[in-house]
């Protein structure tokens, strides 16, 4: 079974801090994703990576950056955390063989910015 592991289930940070969310997958997947989930808004894609050192902006990249130095690890960075970034963050991965691939999700990080 694919395992996607997010480093923290709960995280509390202060406004202005630089925040790192880490995600690791163990299935040698090419694609990795970061989403945020807010009540009533569903999941929204922040960033997407289809290979090491490659990234693409999703629907809401403002205030975020990402890093993918190794295939199995995809990091989401909040450059200067703000209260409107309080949310549930979900990481996912998928096989890179073109379309029609399901995504496999971690259990999420609930981030609170005070």
């Amino acid at each position: 079974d694919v395992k996607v592991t997010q480093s923290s289930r709960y995280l509390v940070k202060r406004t202005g801090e630089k925040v790192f969310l880490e995600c690791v997958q163990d299935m040698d997947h090419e694609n990795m994703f970061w989403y945020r989930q807010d009540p009533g808004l569903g999941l929204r894609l922040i960033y997407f990576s289809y290979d090491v050192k490659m990234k693409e902006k999703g629907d809401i990249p403002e205030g975020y950056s990402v890093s993918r130095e190794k295939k199995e690890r995809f990091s989401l960075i909040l450059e200067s955390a703000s209260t409107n970034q309080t949310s549930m963050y979900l990481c996912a991965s998928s096989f890179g063989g073109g379309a029609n691939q399901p995504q496999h999700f971690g259990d999420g990080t609930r981030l609170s910015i005070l």
Partner: protein
Amino acid sequence: SQQGEEDPQALSIQEGENATMNCSYKTSINNLQWYRQNSGRGLVHLILIRSNEREKHSGRLRVTLDTSKKSSSLLITASRAADTASYFCATEHRGNMLTFGGGTRLMVKP
């Protein structure tokens, strides 16, 4: 960006009954996928239906896709209390990028 819309937003049924959730989307797709999310957890992939397929089954799940109406339905037969969760449809438009709807919260009462 385009987004799937689920209907209803919430559904409450008795154990043993069938649950039907609907999803509509706006533009052409490669496939449509359904995911389940238990409270406080990540999403779990349930089923994927390609744009050239009309119906697909997996255990107690039945998914239909009508590309002319840009809609899909997920039917869970003989529901169980353990089916209580949120269900999301997601559409793939290019590459492997998905656009998710807002979800249907299903409660199955024992």
